[in-house]
């Protein structure tokens, strides 16, 4: 399913042992329960929830422990329980920028009655301009300790010079 050479898009797939409706509901209604809010948040206050308003044009935002909210993007398409299209308007400096408009499309594809394949594409990364490659790397990186070792090796080499 991957087009690994498209520099403006990141594609990911996850296989979930849950029916399509549950997968959709957890993704859209309970985002605060699973989104890594400790790292992937942009507000000043510690984030306690992530919310998607359930209709086209709805806000997508984080809520801080002081009640403040901080937008991430908007709902572009709302098609329960199969397809969700969001704009992700978080800049390379992790600030909300309503004009950024990168897109995240999430598809929920049933695999039998008890499993769902969830496909996610984060596209229009060209909106990051000169910082596209840097951002693509952050979004795309696989958990791979080999990369860490390579980074160490590279840095160690630099340090010796």
């Amino acid at each position: 399913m991957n087009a690994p050479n498209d520099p403006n898009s990141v594609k990911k797939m996850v296989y979930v042992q849950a029916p399509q409706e549950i997968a959709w509901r957890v993704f859209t209604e309970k985002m605060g329960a699973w989104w890594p809010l400790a790292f992937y948040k942009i507000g000043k206050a510690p984030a306690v929830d992530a919310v998607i308003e359930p209709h086209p044009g709805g806000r997508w935002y984080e809520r801080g422990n002081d009640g403040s909210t901080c937008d991430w993007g908007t709902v572009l398409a709302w098609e329960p329980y199969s397809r969700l299209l969001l704009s992700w308007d978080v800049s390379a400096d992790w600030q909300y920028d309503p004009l950024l408009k990168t897109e995240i499309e999430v598809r929920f594809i049933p695999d039998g009655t008890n499993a769902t394949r969830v496909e996610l594409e984060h596209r229009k990364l060209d909106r990051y301009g000169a910082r596209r490659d840097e951002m693509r790397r952050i979004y795309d990186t696989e958990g791979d300790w080999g990369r860490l070792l390579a980074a160490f090796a590279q840095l160690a080499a630099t340090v010796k010079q």
Partner: protein
Amino acid sequence: MATLTQIERALDALGDPTRREVFKRLRNGNRSVREVADGMNVSRPAVSQHLGVLKAAGLIAVRVKGTRRLYGVDPHGIETLRSWLDGFWNETLLAFKQEAEKEAMKGRKLR
């Protein structure tokens, strides 16, 4: 969010072998400068300097206990590195998968 600068600072800090050794010596708990320097082939002021760099990189934290300053690993710094290694969407989708499966399990038990 973890910025790339933060990550690079942490990786840079660990790029030096002596500093890695200093960092490793903190893995079993908090230590004073003297305790870290003991048995190392490095002067105490040099160890202090290395601790300063690790602290600036967010990898360790200082606790003041009476007159003693104790250095220890900062779990948040380690988590930041880990999340960078995992990557944004990998980490996020894995967390989603776990929650959705937990939810599906609940539903099955009710039936």
